[in-house]
């Protein structure tokens, strides 16, 4: 903004930005470099080799693919149900006037504030009581209920759409549900993308819920990686390089989805987050 000191200012400014970036990237860089070095070698700051086989070992020393499959099943269940239902509920809260709406929406907001663990552990006890432990049913139930934060995001988005659209649809004889499905939902694709990505990242990375509700055979990758260590058969020494490789493999889907949807997430938070 100040024209006078701009050249000096800008370069100092870039130096600060670059130093900050290096600090934030350092762990990722070191993880990559070391995941490519040979087994049991001392931790290194510079690239010492290209032992890509570590990544293969990461997927073969444990039942990696089975856990990936479990993760995919859980994510698919939650993604499909929660993304859809949250949209429907968010739409109702944003566009349909009915008695009790505000009170109900306050409930949605307050469940966002509630520490998840206060309901999760009694839920575990209940499921345990009714023998629903060790199935994926809890995820289906939770998914069918939507998610308070996603409902909130959808509602904020739908609330910005002009009223005329709805009226036009009604005059054309469109039912409320069809108005949602054919007009509002297609318009909300950025929110659908944001919610799907956040939903996926949250479910994929969740360690504790599967730990409570499932046994090892059904664990998703997140829980499996926190329970199982990489060691040579017969040995007790952890192979750090392979562990790191597994850690990197584990975050790749999250990072890919982030890059795919970054634009929408940024937009979504800018348009909905602040006014909340």
């Amino acid at each position: 903004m100040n024209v006078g000191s701009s050249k000096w200012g800008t370069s100092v400014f870039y130096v600060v930005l670059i130093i900050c970036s290096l600090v934030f990237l350092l762990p990722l860089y070191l993880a990559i470099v070391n995941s490519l070095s040979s087994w049991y070698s001392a931790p290194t700051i510079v690239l010492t080799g290209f032992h890509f086989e570590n990544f293969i070992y990461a997927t073969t020393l444990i039942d990696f693919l089975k856990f990936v499959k479990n993760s995919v099943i859980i994510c698919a269940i939650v993604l499909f149900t929660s993304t859809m239902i949250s949209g429907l509920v968010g739409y109702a809260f944003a566009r349909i006037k009915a008695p009790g709406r505000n009170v109900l929406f306050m409930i949605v907001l307050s469940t966002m504030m509630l520490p998840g663990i206060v309901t999760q552990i009694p839920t575990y006890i209940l499921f345990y009581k009714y023998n629903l432990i060790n199935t994926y049913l809890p995820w289906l139930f939770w998914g069918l209920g939507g998610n308070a934060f996603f409902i909130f995001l959808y509602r904020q988005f739908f609330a910005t759409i002009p009223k005329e659209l709805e009226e036009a649809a009604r005059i054309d004889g469109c039912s409320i549900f069809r108005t949602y499905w054919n007009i509002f939902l297609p318009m909300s694709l950025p929110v659908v993308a944001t919610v799907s990505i956040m939903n996926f990242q949250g479910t994929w990375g969740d360690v504790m819920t599967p730990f409570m509700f499932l046994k090892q055979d059904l664990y998703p990758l997140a829980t499996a990686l926190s329970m199982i260590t990489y060691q040579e058969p017969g040995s007790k020494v952890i192979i750090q390089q392979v562990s790191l490789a597994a850690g990197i493999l584990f975050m790749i889907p999250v990072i890919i989805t982030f890059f795919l949807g970054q634009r929408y997430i940024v937009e979504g938070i800018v348009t909905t987050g602040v006014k909340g």
Partner: protein
Amino acid sequence: MKEKTRRIVAFYLMISPWFIVFLLLGLYPMLYGLYLSFTNYYGFNMNNLKMVGFHNYRTVFTDSEALYAMGRTLLVTVINVPLGTAIGLSLALLLNRNIRGGGVFRTIFYLPSIVPVISSVLMWRFMFSNDGILNSILNLFHLPRINWLGYDYATVSLIIMLLWGAGGGILINLAGLKGIPKELYEAASIDGASAFQKLFRITLPLMTPVIFFNVIMGVIGSLQIYLQPILLTGSERSELLTRPIQNNYLYVVHAFLQIFAFQRFAYGMALLWILFIVILLITIILFTTSKFWVHYETEQEG
């Protein structure tokens, strides 16, 4: 009239999936947990529960481990939340100008916050290990090596790892900064205000609602941390039910271990309800202080 009924029916039909699940898997478990916290439930006596009144709650206040863990949790929160909020805001301030490559930097700062916990623990544990990288870097500068995951530094290490993800706050901060009217800065420039004055007289006051939001969410999240200490400073074998090192023995870790390692369900529920009340109290306190330092647009108009 008929139109109105149709609308009401549609509304309740559309929210019913959420509402039913909320009743069955939200409200009911919550109250059920509250009920259990007044019983002697320890895993095998479901058909033979006895009401024990406030016994479990009294136990919390005589349980030195619970009190210790609460103290550590508050300490971690008091360090982690202000620092995390400040980092998120500072990075956003750095990015909030039209510079080349701004998007790239934004992505770099934001990226660590989406790295799943398990991956970041694997990376940080490796870096913190005794002959790990951080110590070799210290070595380069002829500094003494630090036992990062040992007793003295475990909490520091935990907080470093948590702060690595502090860039998650930049998006909402950037959104807030974009919302500050340009005219204010222009007017200030005309009046000859320095960049420093603009920051402290315009930007920061107008950002207080966002800062407030970040602090509230940060506190709520921070008081519930339990996975990171267990994974980072628990056993090398990465068992989820091992105790982390004493300094990182946080409150929810304690509750979690009581429930899943020792089957003390009733007591564990009492621990969690007390946490819930603590969170509520702190939130209420923060809200009451907010009128002294949070700037709201509506005041201006009124």
